[in-house]
């Protein structure tokens, strides 16, 4: 069964450094998402992406964050200047359809990237 793959599984970085988290969504999916989970807290929505642009973003997704689909397969999340509070598990997800229809096309999640900011 096709999977969403994320690399690396664990990234350690120093405060103030830039990080790029990478994801390869399922090949025929059109909608892409990033979620994160700070240890002990809820899984939180960050951003959704469709047709090469952001379709929705949360308050967490400020100017320090950006997403990109640089080629036909990768979907990346960049954090420009990491802060200690960015330490979390970051999940990429994809779905075949989106919007209200996206609810009928379940999100498929990757295994996550654990980001540790020191």
């Amino acid at each position: 069964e096709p999977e969403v793959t994320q690399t690396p599984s664990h990234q350690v970085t120093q405060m103030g450094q830039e990080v790029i988290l990478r994801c390869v969504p399922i090949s025929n999916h059109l909608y892409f998402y990033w979620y994160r989970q700070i240890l002990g807290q809820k899984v939180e929505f960050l951003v959704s992406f469709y047709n090469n642009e952001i379709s929705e973003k949360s308050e967490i997704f400020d100017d320090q964050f950006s997403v990109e689909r640089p080629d036909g397969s990768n979907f990346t999340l960049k954090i420009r200047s990491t802060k200690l509070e960015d330490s979390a598990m970051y999940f990429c997800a994809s779905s075949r359809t989106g919007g209200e229809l996206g609810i009928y096309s379940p999100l498929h999640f990757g295994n996550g990237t654990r980001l540790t900011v020191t």
Partner: protein
Amino acid sequence: AQSVTQLDSQVPVFEEAPVELRCNYSSSVSVYLFWYVQYPNQGLQLLLKYLSGSTLVKGINGFEAEFNKSQTSFHLRKPSVHISDTAEYFCAVGGYSTLTFGKGTMLLVSP
């Protein structure tokens, strides 16, 4: 606005015992409800979903959930758990292109 409350952060049970994981939600729009499971070192996997129709929803691995609109609940149940069900379980409510998750409930099954 939508929110999900999972009242129990951890539920310990013995193998072959029944289990119920509780979930309450609030939503100002159409309600779509989900349960996801996360096994150690893995991603979130969809267990089951409620979109419309029958309020009793059956999912994978013998799990089921019941949508109760009057109590705004979507509790997850399994009549007999296995060791392999040890995992974290997340309830989520769906909105336009996003999911709002609860904090998760860790199900610990022991022999």
